[in-house]
C-alpha cells in the first residue's frame, strides 16, 4: 500500500482494459476525510421534510390510515395517500426502456411487498414528519405473502431483470439427465443479504420557477432524470 497516493487525481489514465490496473477512486479523498458532500447534506432555505409511511405487511390492502391524527400533529403540513396524491403522468407498467421498473407510488391501496410506501407525510421538521407517519397507524387486510421459492402458488412474471424472458429452455433436459454419465444433485442455501448503501437514500428537491432541481445519490444520472420526468405529476414541469 506504500504507493497509495492520497490525491484526487487518477493515478494514470487508462486506455482500453481496466484489468490489472490500479484504480483511483476520485472522490475517495473527500470521503475518508469527511469533506464529501452528500445529497442529504443540502438544506435549501425553507426546506420541508417528507417521511414515508411504509407497509408492515408483505401482501394485502391498506384499509385505513388515521390521516386526521397525522394532520393534527404539530408541524405536519400535508399527508399524501392514494386518496389525494397527484396522479402520475404515465402508465407505471409501460416499459419505455429495459431498466424501467414499476414502482408503487401511491397509485392505489394494494400492498405488494413489505415496507412498500403507503403514504407520505410532509412536515417542517424530520421529527414531525416521522411521527406523523407513525400516527397514521395503518390497518390492513392481509393476504398470504409469497416470500419463498417453495410456495405452492407460482408466479411467472412477464419478464425478469432488464426484460429477459422469465423462462427459457434449450433441448430436452429430462432425456439429457436420464442419459447422463454423471449427475450432481445438491441443495444450495444463500445467507441473508443486506443492501448496505454508503450514502443514505435521500432526495433533496427544489423548485426554481418551472424547473425542478434534484439532489440524490444515483448510479445513472441520465436514467434517473428520465425516470423522474416520466413519473412527473401534471402539470408538466421541467426536471434538470
Amino acid at each position, binding site marked *: 500500500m506504500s504507493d497509495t497516493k492520497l490525491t484526487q487525481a487518477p493515478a494514470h489514465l487508462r486506455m482500453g482494459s481496466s484489468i490489472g490496473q490500479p484504480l483511483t477512486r476520485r472522490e475517495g479523498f473527500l470521503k475518508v476525510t469527511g469533506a464529501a458532500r452528500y445529497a442529504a447534506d443540502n438544506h435549501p432555505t425553507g426546506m420541508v421534510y417528507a417521511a414515508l409511511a411504509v407497509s*408492515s405487511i408483505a401482501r394485502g390492502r391498506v384499509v385505513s390510515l388515521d390521516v386526521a391524527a397525522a394532520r393534527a*400533529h*404539530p408541524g405536519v403540513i400535508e399527508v399524501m395517500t392514494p386518496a389525494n396524491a397527484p396522479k402520475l403522468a404515465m402508465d407505471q407498467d409501460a416499459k419505455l426502456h429495459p431498466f424501467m421498473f414499476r414502482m408503487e407510488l401511491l397509485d392505489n391501496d394494494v400492498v405488494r411487498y413489505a415496507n412498500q410506501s403507503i403514504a407520505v407525510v410532509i412536515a417542517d421538521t424530520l*421529527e414531525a414528519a*416521522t*411521527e406523523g407517519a*407513525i400516527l397514521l397507524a395503518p390497518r390492513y387486510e392481509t393476504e398470504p405473502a409469497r416470500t419463498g421459492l417453495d410456495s405452492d402458488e407460482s408466479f411467472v412474471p412477464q419478464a425478469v431483470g432488464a426484460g429477459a424472458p422469465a423462462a427459457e429452455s434449450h433441448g430436452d433436459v429430462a432425456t439429457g439427465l436420464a442419459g447422463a454419465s454423471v449427475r450432481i444433485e445438491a441443495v444450495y442455501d444463500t445467507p441473508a443479504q443486506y443492501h448496505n448503501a454508503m450514502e443514505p437514500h435521500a432526495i433533496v428537491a427544489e423548485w426554481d420557477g418551472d424547473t425542478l432541481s434534484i439532489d440524490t445519490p444515483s448510479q445513472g444520472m441520465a436514467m434517473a432524470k428520465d425516470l423522474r420526468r416520466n413519473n412527473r405529476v401534471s402539470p408538466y414541469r421541467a426536471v434538470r
Partner: protein
Amino acid sequence: MNRFEYARPATLADAVMAGAVPGAAYLAAGTNLMDLMKGGVMRPGHLVDISRLPGLDQIEKLSDGSVRIGALVRNADLAHDLDFARRFPAVAEALLSGASAQLRNAATAGGNLLQRTRCGYFYDTASACNKRDPGAGCDAVGGENRLHAILGWSEHCIATHPSDFCVPLIAFDAVVEVEGANGHRDIPLDGFHRLPGDTPQRETVLEPGELITAVRLPADAAGFAAHARYLKIRERTSYAFAVVSAAAALRIEDGAIAQARIALGGVALKPWRARAAEAELAGARADPAAFRRAAEAALADARPSGDNEFKIELARRIVVRALTLAASGTPERMPALPASPFSGAIAHV
C-alpha cells in the same frame, strides 16, 4: 419521535419527584433510549434529564473496602480508572468489550443496567412483542431466534439481556443503590432484573420513578483480582453484542480453588449467576476436568428457545475457556482485544 416534556432537575430529590410522573423516563447518556424513541419503540411523555445531576459521577472507595460506582460514571472512565481496573480486572475487561469507543465514552454505569434487550422483534414495531405491547404475543418464538435465550425464558419472551458490564458485576455480588419517592434502598443485582415469566414487560424490580444512583462492589470482590477474566463470543470481535459471554474468577490457595465465581451473559433475560457451577469448583484442583464439570452444572437447566441449541454447548465451552484463562492468571495488561478468545494469552491445559 413523539412529543415529550423535557425537564432537567437540579437536585436528586427534584429528579425523583419528576420521575414519578406517569409516562416519565430518566435520560442519562441516552445511548439506548434515544434509539428506542427514534424507532417509536419507547414513547415517554416526560424525559427527566439526570445527566448533569451533581455527585453521581464519582468512583468512591468506601471505608469497608467496597467501591461505589456513581450511576453517571461513564463506561470508559470506569474501565480506565487504574485503581479500579487493578482491583476488578474482569469488570474493566467486560466494559471494554462492550459497544464502541464512542458509546463507551458516553454510556453510564446506571444506564447499562437498564438497557433494553436487542431482540429484533422488540425493536420492530410491526412485530408482536409482549415486552412492548403486553399480551400481543412474541414473534421471536418461531422466528429468527438463533441468538435468543437458553436459560430462564418463557413462552411469552425469549429475549436476552445484552449487558457485558452486568455479568462480572453479578458474579461479584454487586448491589444496586436506588432512590425513590419512598427513600433509599439497596437491591442485590442478582435480584434486580426479572425473568420474563408471563410479565416480560416488567424487566426489573424498580418501582415506577425509582432512580439508580450507584452500583456497589463489595470488598471481597477484589480478592479475585489475580484470577479474573471476562470472555465474550461475538459474531465480530468489536462493536457486537455477546452470543454468549462468561465472567470467571477464582481464589486459588495452595493449588486448589478456595472460591469460584461464574456468571454468563447473552443466555437469559438477566445476567446469569451460575452458583451450581461455583459449588462444583469449591475445593477442586484447577484442571480441565473440574472446569468441564462446572460448565455442565452451569448449563444443566439450559434448553433451546428456537434455532439456538448451539448456544448451550458454546456457553459450556466459554465457561471452560474463561475458567482456564482465569486460572492461568489475570494478564498484566488489558488484552488488545478485550474479552476476545482470539487475543493471545491462551493458556495451555
